[in-house]
């Protein structure tokens, strides 16, 4: 049987190659899905861990497991210690350190020699695992491991403890309350002062300054003295489990979360125990994001899966079509259906073994490509994704194989039914495909339009839910794919009718070539539908993907630019007399202004502006006061030069407003939502004040919808925990006027940089300045592109398009080569009837126009319609709090041109191949071919 299958495959190698390619693509895309989401999430987890370290200056991988109590219950400390030390394993993470901090409660202690300045502060005895390996001694020496012969225990203290406890090196203290096993009170001698050896050492879960009242002794001695069953003494133990944060696996996140839950249950129930996990929040956020990214991937890849399966199904049917006669012959000789199915099943298994072997590595490659996609059809070399082939991707690949096997074997049933006679009868009968009979196109279109309709009705609610971290309904997101598929199929249904009309209207005037092309397109449709579907889908998906990706990317970027306001926005930390004011409230709060001139003259600065921002301004309006207004106080000239204005947002050039404001110190601009709510008019007077009740008066000079750095609406969490959109009002005033009224307050420095913002980092480093507020617009944009949602969007849309394009090229060539081969006889007849070669070419070109060009145009139209209809939906799914600007449907010219030029050259290439095939055909031979 295998030999039979191999011979069969060899005789139709091109078709089987096409089938194999489709199969490999299906397997690799299926396996790239978990590979990619896992890799991208893994990187995000690592980045989050790093960000935690940077922002809080503490290591995120810590678990602190603490116990406090007596040891009257046997083995209690041992029990908790085992539990604590088992945590890393439970989390499936390597532990950097497992540290035990044992300490007694603070207790009275007496010095051996009383100094003048001795004071009797209670202190604790403690020990820290491997302290001697991680600490450096800054005075004296490290303790010895043994109790001295005189019974004295050597201890070391931190610098803080040295001061806090007021002890000296060499001083001895006796603790009457704490005795050894013989009942002798413990005496310790301070032999050294320790500090952190290496500041980057994660050993120091708690800094030495935390141990401010502890005498640290070797752990073994402490255990010998105080850790034994039955001790009535209160004992504190803290186990620091320092996990390797980078070995935390995103795919283990859920199981880690359940361990955390388990631990917090212990924390709640066991009064002796408290457990705190530093990475809990990161993990929770991570799991939320993970399911979001997972669903997004599925939704975005859905049309690709559908197309791939359809492709495999159709190619195998095409192959079966050529084998129908053989099947019928086999059947007439008594071969059973089961045996025939067996042949095809074995054949599909063979293909899938190859597909699996080739598909998994290709999946890894695709994942790399996904990871390097920066925008649609745009790649950058980023650091490689941490791709890991685990069981899940393998299972996905196997599932892909299974589906491929089904898609290959399923159509066989149709051919095993009936005899040779019914086969021939069937061939002559025209059969409508299932989707036509079931009106699947209309249904798909209907469902998607309904989805769109219901989305538009509940837009606000859905947006709110997403803002609260809920997943958008994947079905809703699938609507765009459904729309494309439905519209594509409907077009296939409708287009022939249009062509028929054209045909009947004009047929009498046509040249034979044109006439023949039209007839061909009208009357021999079976396979042509297939290629048209693929072309329409490819182009529609391509256009949709390009539009979606570029709109979301561009809007994201625009939003960042708009909300940042300028290339660099920073605020230095201002010193003030606030401490004095606290003690003496009658004093005025005075800030000491840093030198602004530094920024104006700095190398790399194009221009700089002072901007005072306060979002807690009240204004009196008719009928009361409005709170939480945002005030922008600016130097109009500097601001105009420095701020980033997106001119498309302003009906008038913003300089008009700035110029107007420059004439009058009291001039203010208001946001138009403020005007709309309270009916301000130009020339009105507005009184506003800060929370300290300093007030100012402005004359309204104009209204703006947008202002750099200003969000027209904000989401505020209501008392019921639901986020609601509420308008954010804006007042733009002259800085000098505001400073007169409010006094000098810390303002921001906005900078328009000549090139990149590197100089400001250098400046900050050289002068050791930390900016309490710092925005680097370009860095934010880069950061924005690293968002895993956005990244997977770009990646999937790009790879999806490439895959569909590949399918399309294969399908296209296969269709045309088959179609020309099948029609060799027909061409022979045409030529015998006196058609010239040129006319035959013209005929083929006409067919191309009727089939390919019409499909491409339709596909483009469907893609554009789909993107304009469904863009708001996708935008909302990716939305965050930072969407200030209206969504503008960006026409991605580059990507669209790229798309059409790729498709165009594909068509040209295919036509050339076809041309060569036709040219090689000899008419006489063509006729012979038809004779036997």
């Amino acid at each position, binding site marked *: 049987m295998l030999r039979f299958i191999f011979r069969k495959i060899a005789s139709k190698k091109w078709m089987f190659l096409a089938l194999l390619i489709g199969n490999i693509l299906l397997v690799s895309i299926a396996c790239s899905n978990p590979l990619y989401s896992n890799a991208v999430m893994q990187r995000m987890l690592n980045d989050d861990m790093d960000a935690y370290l940077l922002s809080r200056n503490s290591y995120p991988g810590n678990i602190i497991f603490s116990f406090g109590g007596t040891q009257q219950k046997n083995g209690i400390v041992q029990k908790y210690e085992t539990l604590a030390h088992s945590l890393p394993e439970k989390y499936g993470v390597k532990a950097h350190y497992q540290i035990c901090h044992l300490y007694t409660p603070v207790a009275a202690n007496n010095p051996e020699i009383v100094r003048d300045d001795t004071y009797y502060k209670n202190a604790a005895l403690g020990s820290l695992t491997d302290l001697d390996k991680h600490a450096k001694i800054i005075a004296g020496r490290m303790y010895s491991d043994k109790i001295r012969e005189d019974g004295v225990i050597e201890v070391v203290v931190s610098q803080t403890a040295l001061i806090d406890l007021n002890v000296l090196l060499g001083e001895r203290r006796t603790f009457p309350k704490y005795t050894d096993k013989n009942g002798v009170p413990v005496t310790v001698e301070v032999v050294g002062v320790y500090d952190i050896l290496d500041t980057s050492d994660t050993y120091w879960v708690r800094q030495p300054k935390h141990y401010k009242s502890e005498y640290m002794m070797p752990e073994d001695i402490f255990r010998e003295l105080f850790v034994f069953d039955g001790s009535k003494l209160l004992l504190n133990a803290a186990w620091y489990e320092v996990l390797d944060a980078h070995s935390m696996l995103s795919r283990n996140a859920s199981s880690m979360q359940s361990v955390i839950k388990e631990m917090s249950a212990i924390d709640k129930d066991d009064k002796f125990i408290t457990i705190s996990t530093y990475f809990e929040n990161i993990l929770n956020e991570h799991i939320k994001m993970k399911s979001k990214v997972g669903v997004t991937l599925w939704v975005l890849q859905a049309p690709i899966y559908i197309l791939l399966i359809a492709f495999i199904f159709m190619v195998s049917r095409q192959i079966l079509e050529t084998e129908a006669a053989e099947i019928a012959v086999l059947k007439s000789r008594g071969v059973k259906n089961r045996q025939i199915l067996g042949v095809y099943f074995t054949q599909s298994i063979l293909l899938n073994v190859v597909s699996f072997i080739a598909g998994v590595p290709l999946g890894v490659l695709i994942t790399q490509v996904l990871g390097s996609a920066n925008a649609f059809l745009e790649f950058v070399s980023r650091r490689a994704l941490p791709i890991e082939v685990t069981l899940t991707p393998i299972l996905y690949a196997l599932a892909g194989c299974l589906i491929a096997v089904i898609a290959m074997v399923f159509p066989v049933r149709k051919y095993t039914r009936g005899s040779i006679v019914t086969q021939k009868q069937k061939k002559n009968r025209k059969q409508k495909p299932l989707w036509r009979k079931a009106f699947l196109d209309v249904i798909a279109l209907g469902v998607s339009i309904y989805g769109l309709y219901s989305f538009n009705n509940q837009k606000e609610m859905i947006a709110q839910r997403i803002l609260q971290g809920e997943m958008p309904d994947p079905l809703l997101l699938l609507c765009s794919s459904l729309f494309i598929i439905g519209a594509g199929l409907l077009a296939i249904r409708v287009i022939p009718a249009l062509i028929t009309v054209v045909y009947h209207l004009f047929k009498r005037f046509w040249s034979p070539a044109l006439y*023949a092309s039209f*007839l061909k397109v009208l*009357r*021999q449709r079976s396979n042509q539908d297939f290629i048209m579907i693929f072309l329409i889908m490819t182009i529609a998906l391509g256009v949709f993907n390009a539009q979606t990706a570029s709109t979301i990317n561009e809007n994201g970027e625009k939003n960042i630019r708009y909300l940042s306001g300028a290339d660099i926005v920073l605020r230095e930390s201002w010193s003030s007399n606030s401490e004095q004011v606290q003690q003496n409230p009658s004093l005025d709060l005075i800030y000491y202004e840093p030198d602004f001139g530094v920024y104006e003259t700095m190398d790399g600065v194009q221009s700089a502006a002072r901007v005072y921002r306060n979002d807690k301004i009240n204004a009196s309006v008719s009928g009361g006061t409005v709170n939480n207004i945002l005030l922008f106080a600016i130097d109009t000239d500097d601001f105009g030069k420095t701020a980033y204005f997106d001119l498309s947002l302003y009906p008038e050039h913003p300089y008009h407003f700035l110029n107007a404001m420059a004439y009058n110190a009291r001039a203010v601009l208001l946001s138009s939502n403020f005007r709309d709510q309270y009916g301000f008019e130009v020339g009105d007077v507005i009184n506003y004040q800060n929370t300290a009740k300093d007030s100012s008066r402005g004359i309204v000079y104009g209204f703006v919808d947008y202002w750099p750095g200003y969000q027209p609406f904000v989401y505020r969490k209501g008392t019921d925990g639901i986020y609601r959109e509420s308008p954010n009002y804006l007042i733009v005033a002259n800085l000098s006027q505001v400073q007169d009224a409010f006094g000098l307050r810390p303002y921001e420095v906005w900078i328009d940089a000549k090139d990149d913002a590197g100089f400001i980092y250098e400046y900050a480093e050289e002068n050791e300045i930390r900016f309490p507020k710092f925005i680097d617009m370009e860095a934010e944009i880069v950061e924005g592109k690293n968002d895993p949602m956005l990244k997977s969007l770009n990646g999937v849309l790009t790879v999806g398009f490439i895959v569909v394009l590949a399918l399309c090229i294969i399908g296209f060539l296969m269709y045309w080569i088959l179609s020309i081969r099948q029609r060799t006889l027909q061409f022979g007849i045409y030529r015998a*009837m*006196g058609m010239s070669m040129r006319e035959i070419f013209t005929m083929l070109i006409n067919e191309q126009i009727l089939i390919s060009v019409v499909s491409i145009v339709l596909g483009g139209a469907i893609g554009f319609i789909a993107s304009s209809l469904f863009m708001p939906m996708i935008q909302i799914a990716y939305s965050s709090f930072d969407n200030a600007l209206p969504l503008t449907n960006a026409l991605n010219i580059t990507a669209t041109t790229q798309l059409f030029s790729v498709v165009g050259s594909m068509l040209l290439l295919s036509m050339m191949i076809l041309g060569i095939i036709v040219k090689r055909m000899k*008419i006489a031979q063509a006729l012979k071919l*038809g*004779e036997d």
Partner: protein
Amino acid sequence: MADKQRYMIQARGIKRAFPVSSKTFWALKGIDVDIPAGALTILKGRSGSGKTTLLNILGALDKPTNGKVVFNGRNICKMDEMRRARLRRRDIGFVFQSVALVPMMSAQENIEFALRLARFKGNRAKRALECLKMVGLDKRANHMPQELSGGEQQRVAIARAIAHKPKVIFADEPTGELDTNTGLRVVKIFKDLIEKEGVTIVMTTHDTGLMEIGDRVYEILDGKVAGDDDE
């Protein structure tokens, strides 16, 4: 009588070679034939004798490796592809063994298409029906080829071949796939056409029963003319 005969086609020294797996196979090894105008010439021979190859060469579908063919006074071997196409379009009609109708066109459309190709001036539909009537199939004008029987299809093919009033009709085993009665009917139609329209017909056959109907019969044997019954 023979030397006064006007010849529509005269072929001299026709040789035709086909490359068959690195060797050369000579399908025709030097053939001279004269096709009288307004008569039925039969090329007979077993399958593989080279008669179809000869027919294709006479009908300007194929070029001989050696030799020349004078068609109505012009040497068609020296014509370029465009001219040969035009010649086939205007002056020649083909009928093939396996019925060579365009499957996506109805009987009438097949004929109209031939007229369209021949740049036929006048009412194509009317002429198509006229030709169908000639072969007795005017009632089945709107049927698609697969809805017709083999004999009917062959008759449509003949109707198509004569529609544009060609000078010569080449028929390659037109009765090959038909039963004797239907075959005789087809040949009868040919005889009628010669009488009514004055066309020249060249047909190949291996059916010895049909030979006596021919005005002239050439027997092709292994790439050569076996004998000449007329002279």
